[in-house]
């Protein structure tokens, strides 16, 4: 696509109906529609409220521990021998990932709306833990839906959620992973519209969720802007983030979308390889469709049936992607690539031994891509990678993959 055909700004979306180009929208059952409109109205009011913003800032600073550091990964930089690599350390947040940024925003909104019960879906359990955490903090009962398969591979997070007082319900239909957990959460919501708020964990779902989640996660990119200006007196040359639904990625990217000199790369989960049928790369291997309230890129067969995604990372194991990413992909503003399970595993171990940081398997995909490109970049180039979660939750799954028996 030529520059002349591009949008003037990449930061203006969505339109009033929740569309980013043809993507996004509100494809939900009528039972939910009045509630979706109510959420939108409440969010618009909250956005304009200094009290709401101050409250969110307060909890971000004193509960989560923001701003998270921007850390120069010196040993990895030397190891790759090319571009300077910075990590945005959102894995240091309370609860261990970027998910808390969004959960705090949404739970404060739920309280403003007078909702007394919270539901959520979770894949890797990071979002579930963050939801359970804010629900404990604000004394709200919550039910977390999680695919049966994910419950098995993410036992530590399941236990964490329960410790925090949440009820964890297994999604036993379909592929029994993240998409099925989202189906179950939507079924719960349709049944309990009066008192329940659904905290969606990724920048997807019906409008206003993609916008709302992006806004709450944009604190990541905004901090990076300030931090890199202080450290390097200039913007980075490249941003890299992993992408499943895309909340950490859009949070890092959005404040930079209109900076033409900042190259932006998102790394999808390539599973066993995108030339196989076992991957979760919706943009690379899917096409436009409608699921879970929005139009976006989906892994689907010729009949429009949704296909099961595959990734070693439960957090990326989703056959769709946020609608804003689908639009940015078609606009050519963000480059969507992929990394395989094997590459992510390698990066997971490399980061651990080189930097003393055990990353989650999700950002290990981002690092796997950095490993491919950093060596060929000049040493004066700067990459900022979102280290969006820590790997404690993954050690059992990784040990199993590496043939190590843990007790």
């Amino acid at each position, binding site marked *: 696509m030529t520059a002349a055909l591009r949008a003037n700004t990449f930061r203006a979306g969505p339109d009033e*109906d929740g569309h980013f180009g043809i993507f996004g*929208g*509100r*494809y*939900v*059952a*009528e*039972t*939910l*529609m*009045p*509630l979706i409109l109510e959420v939108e109205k409440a969010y618009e009011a909250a956005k304009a409220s200094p009290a709401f913003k101050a409250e969110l800032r307060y909890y971000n600073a004193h509960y989560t521990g923001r701003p998270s550091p921007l850390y120069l990964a010196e040993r990895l930089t030397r190891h790759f021998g090319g571009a300077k690599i910075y990590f945005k350390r959102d894995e240091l947040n309370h609860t261990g990932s970027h998910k808390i940024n969004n959960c705090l925003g949404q739970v404060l909104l739920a309280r403003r709306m007078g909702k007394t019960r919270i539901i959520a879906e979770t894949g890797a359990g990071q979002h579930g833990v963050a939801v359970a955490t804010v629900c404990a903090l604000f004394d709200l009962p919550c039910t977390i839906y999680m695919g049966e398969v994910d419950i098995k591979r993410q036992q530590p997070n399941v236990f964490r959620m329960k410790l925090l007082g949440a009820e964890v319900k297994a999604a036993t*239909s*379909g592929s029994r992973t993240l*998409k*099925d957990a989202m*189906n179950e959460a*939507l*079924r719960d919501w*349709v*049944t*309990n*519209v*009066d008192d329940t708020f659904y905290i969606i964990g990724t920048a997807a779902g019906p409008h206003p969720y993609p916008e709302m989640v992006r806004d709450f996660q944009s604190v990541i990119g905004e901090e990076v802007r300030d931090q890199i200006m202080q450290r390097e007196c200039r913007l980075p040359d490249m941003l890299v983030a992993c992408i499943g639904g895309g909340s950490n990625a859009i949070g890092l990217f959005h404040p930079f979308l209109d900076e033409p000199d900042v190259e932006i790369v998102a790394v999808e989960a390539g599973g066993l390889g995108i030339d196989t049928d076992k991957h979760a790369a919706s943009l690379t291997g899917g096409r*436009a*469709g*409608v*699921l*879970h*309230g929005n139009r976006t890129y*989906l892994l*689907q067969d*010729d*009949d*429009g*049936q*949704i296909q099961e995604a595959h990734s070693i990372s439960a957090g990326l194991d989703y056959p769709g992607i946020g609608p804003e990413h689908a639009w940015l992909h078609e606009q050519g503003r963000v480059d969507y690539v992929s990394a395989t399970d094997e590459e992510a595993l390698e990066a997971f171990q490399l980061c651990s031994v080189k930097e003393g940081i055990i990353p989650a398997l999700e950002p290990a995909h981002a690092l796997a891509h950095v490993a491919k490109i950093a060596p060929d970049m000049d040493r004066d180039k700067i990459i900022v990678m979102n280290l969006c979660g820590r790997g404690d939750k993954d050690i059992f799954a990784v040990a199993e993959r590496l043939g190590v028996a843990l007790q």
Partner: protein
Amino acid sequence: MTEASGSTRLTEKFAALEEEGRAGFVAFITAGDPDPETSFTVMCGLPAAGVDIIELGMPFTDPMADGPSIQAAGLRALKAGMTLAGTLDMVRRFRADGQTAPIVLMGYFNPIYSYGVDRFLHDALSAGVDGLIIVDLPPEEDAELCLPAQAAGLPFIRLATPTTDDGRLPTVMANTAGFVYYVSITGITGAGSAMTADVAAAVERLRRHTDLPIAVGFGIKTPEQAAEIGQHADAVVVGSAIVERVGALASSNGSVQSVLDFVGSLADGVRRART
């Protein structure tokens, strides 16, 4: 087209029901469940068992408004190789058999979007489909399918729910054709049952906003419930309870006749509603 177009069959059916002074009976089955041939046999037996309108589910992997029974039905059908093209083919064969019962397709948007909206509308009309109920297309997304369907002459039947308040009802009723489907509970298909008094009040409320016939569904499982709802609604929809019996065919725990006998008992319930 020489044959009766979609809207005619539905309109004629409701006119006939009014003449008879009784509520209509809408039976839901999932196309291709438990396999395409058995499903077709069940479908062909429905009118003789007392079904006035057939609601034919288009299987989808992720039916977010459906309960366990209809989810399982969809997965059985998909596993047996059912597709949207196969569903339309079922309708075509039904009409080729000389059957005239109105058929309303019910499902989710993605398979239709994938098939292509214009191609779908053309093929659905020529197969003999009489209306569409698409769960995940609220009025806010009318441009996707509702308006093209209207232009093509295929009624787009809207769902109204207990959460659709008086302020919103005009939005929901605009562009609605055929009949209005009142979802009697806030919940998924096959979940708990609504109180008859609530349904009666809701139907009265809807009538202030539309002249179209009103069908009531979700949570109606027995001939007795069907009879109660039939006192107030223009048509009564039963889905999950029938689909559960179709599901038994998959494990050979029943016969097509046993399904049709159950359907017949529901039809009797509806028929005695106003006697």
